[in-house]
């Protein structure tokens, strides 16, 4: 900038800073300070009651040998790996269906969207009730002649149950896909039809490339969200679940911070999570440069 600011520029600077001052104060107090403090605490033994004591990288070293940490990492990776692709595929299929010339489109759209706004604690209650032994889901299965597993009691079924119940709330993703689908020029499909391209070919070569920016956006949001999954497993299992099968990363972190008061260790875990999120987002972004097609680039 230099010192060569005109009077008008200086006035604007003062006015601009005045308008954004709530954010500056808020960022300093509720953003920057906590980030720096958290980084510092991650190298400390800290229990909130006593002053933090610097212990170097001990928290991070402990993490490497902490089997509970790795279990929570595994649970979270499992959950993300299944729920993101499943949710996105389902959302895309439903959005493509809703984008056809169909009757009562707005009724269908409402039905698919509604679950996504239900408060998470309410959602958890509904699923506890549905997956309860002898509950509605079990009845449905026995009506089809299928056995019912211990959805929330068998350690091998807990995570699939959480994935399934999470997929129920893909409404937001559906709306985003639908908005993107409506922007795909109809002429592309018309010329493809003249060339005799089948529906799957059209999906693969027109629809998916044209909505790839939204796929990328949903993927990034999905990664950030599912790595921090907390409320549903916490409420539905009321704890870490059988053999810690529902001990997700964020729950493990919460327990360390507020139940065992290992706040330094919790901060170290939070930083590892932050780094993982950044790396994955970066990785997805690099991949997307090759495959994501932004409209107008030709």
């Amino acid at each position, binding site marked *: 900038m230099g010192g060569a600011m005109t009077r008008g520029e200086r006035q604007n*600077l003062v006015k*601009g800073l005045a308008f954004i001052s709530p*954010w500056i104060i808020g960022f300093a107090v509720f953003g920057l300070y906590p980030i720096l403090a958290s980084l510092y*605490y991650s190298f400390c033994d800290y229990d909130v009651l006593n002053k933090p004591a610097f212990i170097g990288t001990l928290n991070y070293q402990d993490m490497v040998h902490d089997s509970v940490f790795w279990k929570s990492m595994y649970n979270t990776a499992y959950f993300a790996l299944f729920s993101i692709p499943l949710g996105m595929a389902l959302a895309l299929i439903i959005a493509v269906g809703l984008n056809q010339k169909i009757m009562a489109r707005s009724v269908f759209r409402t039905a698919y969207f509604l679950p996504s706004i239900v408060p998470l604690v309410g959602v958890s209650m509904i699923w506890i*009730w549905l997956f309860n032994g002898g509950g509605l889901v079990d009845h449905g299965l026995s009506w089809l002649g299928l056995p019912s597993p211990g959805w929330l009691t068998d350690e091998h079924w807990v995570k699939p149950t959480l994935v399934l119940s999470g997929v129920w709330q893909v409404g937001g993703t559906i*709306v*985003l896909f639908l908005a993107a689908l409506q922007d795909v020029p109809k002429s592309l499909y018309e010329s493809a039809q003249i060339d005799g391209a089948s529906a799957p070919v059209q999906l693969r070569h027109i629809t998916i490339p044209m909505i790839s920016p939204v796929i990328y*956006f949903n993927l990034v949001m999905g990664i950030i969200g599912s790595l921090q999954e907390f409320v549903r497993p916490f409420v539905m299992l*009321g704890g870490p679940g059988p053999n810690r099968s529902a001990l997700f990363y964020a729950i493990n972190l919460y327990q360390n911070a507020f139940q065992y008061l290992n706040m330094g260790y919790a901060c170290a875990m939070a930083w590892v999570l*932050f780094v993982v999120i950044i790396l994955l987002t970066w990785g997805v972004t690099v991949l997307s440069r090759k495959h994501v097609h932004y409209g107008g680039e030709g």
Partner: protein
Amino acid sequence: MRWTSKLLIHAVLLFGALVFIVPMLWMLVTALKPIDQAMTSPPSWTPHRWVLTEGGETLTVGLDKMPNDTTPDSLVSVGCAYRWLIEIQGEPVPVRFTDGDGPGEAATLNIAVDYHIQAQIDGDWLPAKVQDPLAALAAQDPVSVVVIDADGYTYRKTVKPDQLRRTFDQSKQDLRASFGQSQAMAVPAGSLARSPIDWDDRLELAHVQVEQRQVRAGALSKHIALRWDNFPKAVSAMERFPDYLRNTLVLCVLTVIGTVISSTLVAYGFSRIDWPGRDKMFLVVLATMMIPFPVVMVPLFSMFKEFGWIGTLKPLWVPTFFAGAFNVFLLRQFFRTIPKDLSESARIDGCSEIRIFWQIILPLAKPAITVVALFQFMGTWNDFLGPLIYLTDQKDFTLALGLQFFQSQHGGTQWHYLMAASALVVLPIIVLFFFAQRTFIEGISMTGLKA
């Protein structure tokens, strides 16, 4: 498109939509059932009652389902509930038998009635403990009592005789209240009356007896019956529900006000004024959206602890007065679409910046502000982790936290109340959605398309 594939698409979409809606419907249906219908096999989608009509009298009786191949004259075993009542000072009072289960053949019956002494303290009738209660009731002089208030605190008070009364326990909840008393008596057999009660009420009323009776199938009829009173009962089972609701509403109002005021100001500063370094600074705003909450969770907690805010609502609303990055981003996108000329000509006319903000930009930005306010309202209503970390006292809980607390206390038994309570948390959001459907869909699209 060929009609077969069109039919297929409709069928698949319809099936999917049913799957998406069934969980919520099942919640509502369960919320309107008595508990014994909640877990029947096969599941029933219609809350109902079985009514026995005999000699002009009707009574709700207990029956899981009508056995197969019944004719109107075949006998069916149903559950009947009743109580034995005695009249004391004109009031029918349920009794229990101190020797045996029922009146039997004896001419004199040993029974007991349960009651509470209540003392009027500052206008409220509170349960009280008195030495020799019956004598105290009859006495003319002030008496010393120990009372227990709604928060469970006990203290000693001296009250006048007209501030003391006796209430007979009618429900199981009455029986559970502190300082229960009972009075044994021997009464002639004829002074008791057998009074049948609604089968649904047997779990709530005091001193209920049940029996299986063989009745004619033709005298039974099934009626759809929605138990709307499950909602008030769930509310009172949650005990602190009014507090939860008040806290949630207070937080919703404060956070919406805070978010709208601060985010519009900041977004204005980032879009309608040209100042050096503005766009670089905005990149910092965007970058803060990447920070996961767990990273700042612990330092925020210890900071709020220093402020003495833990166990108050403050950590949940004060930060919203300092503009969240996401809302600033949404509003800035919108403010940028408003033509620059509007501001420029106002500036030439000598309008101050704050007047331009208030009188020109804000009225034009109503749609975007509505989206931000709506999302903030929902975010606060739904928030669980924040209240879980910062609130310590049950009276400060929000609905989301209170619901989880109720489930952890009573889950697995009172399904009908749990679903009624869940519906009370979920339905306001659903109703809001139907009023603001367009805003919702536009808001969601706004978050994605500009990213």
